[in-house]
């Protein structure tokens, strides 16, 4: 009734091609942004930021990054954990080498460094495809983790091989370190998440994204119509790695504060982010958010219900978590192989017709 295109007249091409063509959708989007930026920072405490918002926002950036590569460009990657580690260690080296520079700059440069590394490991994608490429990126995962464990320069020769985020600020507000206010860490991450999502969304709508999708759908056909596979694939690797690197930098500096590469950025992380985009929806920015929310929030929610409300033993709840999350993944993949994003799309289609479906 209120969710429909009817009555909306676009007078310019710009109006016509906007992301949210329906007025209700657009307002909902502005509302979510408003709440995220102007309301939540005033309401959150340490628990909500550190246990829920930070992991959700940071994983969402990683999922957006991987979605560009896998969902839009069709290049399967299992190296996400390794690329996140590049972002984290780049950020650490920058933070300790240039303590006076703003954290914004550090995180962005860390992303850029990851982009370069991503391109290097993306080079084989010009020759190998599908499962073979997955194996090549898997090699990147193991190589990078090994590298950061092996070369003491990366962790400033600390005895434990751990990297610890020192206190750094941006515009005079502490962003990393133990004395950071909850709202500052939250706002810092939410800005990165929003900007990443907007950039990614617009890239995928433009010529760059169309080239990626052409490569994904059929690379030979794409080549014939004039898409250069070299630039298309490598740009996908670069941009994807940039976002993944940003998320790794935030993950280390803002969220965890201390990182051990083998445990935090291991192969499990690669799979986790891959599951996020598969469950959320391949080739969808909303899907990246939905998948991240699903895999970050569900375990916390189950824990709160099981342990805090029902008073069950912690190990039973931990096992149940695995069972429930696993079962839900299977249910999702059977009932809706295109992920949560597809459910969302279907719901929107239905809403457009509601309440007169014929």
């Amino acid at each position, binding site marked *: 009734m209120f969710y429909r295109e009817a009555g909306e007249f676009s007078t310019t091409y710009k109006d016509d091609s906007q992301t949210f063509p329906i007025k209700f959708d657009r307002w909902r989007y502005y509302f979510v942004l408003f709440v*995220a930026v102007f309301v939540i920072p005033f309401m959150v405490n340490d*628990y909500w930021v*550190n246990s829920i918002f930070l992991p959700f926002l940071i994983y969402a950036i990683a999922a957006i990054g991987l979605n560009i590569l896998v969902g839009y460009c069709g290049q399967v990657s299992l190296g996400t954990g390794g690329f996140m580690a590049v972002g984290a260690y780049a950020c650490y080296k920058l933070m300790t080498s240039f303590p006076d520079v703003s954290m914004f700059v550090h995180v962005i440069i860390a992303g850029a460094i990851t982009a370069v590394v991503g391109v290097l490991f993306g080079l084989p994608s010009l020759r190998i495809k599908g499962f073979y490429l997955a194996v090549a990126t898997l090699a990147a995962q193991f190589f990078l983790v090994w590298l950061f464990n092996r070369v003491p320069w990366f962790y400033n020769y600390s005895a*434990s091989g751990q990297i610890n985020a020192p206190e750094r600020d941006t515009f005079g507000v502490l962003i990393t370190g133990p004395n950071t206010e909850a709202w500052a860490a939250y706002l810092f991450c939410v800005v990165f998440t929003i900007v990443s999502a907007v950039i990614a969304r617009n890239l995928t709508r433009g010529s760059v994204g169309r080239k990626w999708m052409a490569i994904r759908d059929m690379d030979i056909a794409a080549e014939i119509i004039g898409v250069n596979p070299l630039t298309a694939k490598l740009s996908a690797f670069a941009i994807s790695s940039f976002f993944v690197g940003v998320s790794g930098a935030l993950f280390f500096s803002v*969220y*965890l504060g201390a990182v051990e590469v083998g445990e935090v950025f291991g192969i499990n992380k690669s799979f986790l982010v891959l599951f996020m985009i598969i469950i959320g929806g391949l080739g969808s920015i909303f899907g990246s958010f939905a998948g991240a929310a699903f895999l970050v929030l569900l375990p916390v929610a189950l824990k709160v219900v099981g*342990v805090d409300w029902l008073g069950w033993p912690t190990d039973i*709840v*931990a096992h149940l978590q695995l069972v429930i999350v696993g079962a839900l993944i299977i249910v999702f993949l059977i009932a809706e192989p295109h992920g949560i994003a597809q459910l969302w799309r279907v719901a929107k289609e239905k809403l457009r017709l509601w309440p007169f479906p014929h």
Partner: protein
Amino acid sequence: MKMKFATMAVAAVMAAGPVMADLVFPSLSYRTGPYAASGIPFADGYADYFTLLNERDGGIGGAPVRMVECETGYNTEKGVECYESTKGEGALVYQPLSTGITYQLIPKATADGIPIHSMGYGRTSASNGTVFSHVFNYPANYWDGASGAINYLLEENGGNLDGKKIALIYHNSAYGKEPIRTLEELQKQHGFELTLLPVDHPGQEQKSQWLQIRRDRPDYVVMWGWGVMNQVAVQEAVNIRYPMENFIGVWWSGSEADVIPAGAAANGYKALTFHGVGKDYPVYDDIQKFVLDAGKAAGAGDQIGTVQYNRGMYAAMLAAEAARTAQEIHGTADITPAMMRDGMEALEITEEKMAALGLPNYGPAFKVSCEQHGGPGLVGVTQWDAAAQQWNVISDYKPTDRELIGRLIEEDSAAYAAENNIEPRCN
């Protein structure tokens, strides 16, 4: 979507309002995952001792103890979640039983004013109280362990390790890397040859490391393992017929769960310890009576008297005594984390106190001070007797190379202080 979180947030904050009438001891345990075999008995011991205090004495100094358990799975992300979700309840002291989580919590807990007790793990240099105001690792630390192991080997070899080959097989993490620096120093001092063999998380894959041991035939193998890594290592050592009496684990690599899977062949495997073994102590009669027979045991209740159970109980006992000390200092039963910290810093464990607690000769007598958060670092050696299915103490608690360790601690804590702009305290 985000509105829903906000309303949930409000509901959760209101539902989980702090109840200040009791003493909250969070237990960041892990009963699942590849480290569960080591985590379960520790968590059971920790919980059972507090249950005993509640049932027998009505808590500590009249205030009942409430233990909040949170499953970390030995995972740092879940550890953060557990820390954040329990600290609001008035948590008095954190014992995360994970070096990785300890590293994470050191700055956070210090900023929040909550003490950490990483007993025999964590950041070794935290025993320097002038830099680490809220972190304690009495009664022994990793570098004591490394030095204790080498001292024991020196004793075995008549005081000379010249030309001997020693391999360190370690968990490739902050935990496993801790002893390396000390061992390298000791290597220079005593002239043995040190080989480093890292094993990646979670530790099930050790074939290549043991192949190397089989090829190099080191005289001794020292292990810094945890969880499933221990069982696999002992089994692999058995498989290559490595003489078990030359294989020594740190105290985290020497429990029943680590050696029983390898059966009779594990006989003779050695492990370090900083507290007593077995259940031949009066306190176990009380645990049997007040906890087990009352049906209040944590977990399955089948771990009593195992090495890690004992250690969990010892950790709970030290926490309870520190709380008691804090109550005496501040003259109130209802202590805050800041008072708890004072209690830990003023903690004094004497032989008489241990005997009164039902644990005579169980652990060392020591006194914590503002500068010294590390305890005496006395290290003993135990050996597995597969036929009797028990650990026996074969070398009594002996002092370690404190001069060297003190120097290394000074160095590492100074680096931390410089990194974080910490002014030394206690002047």
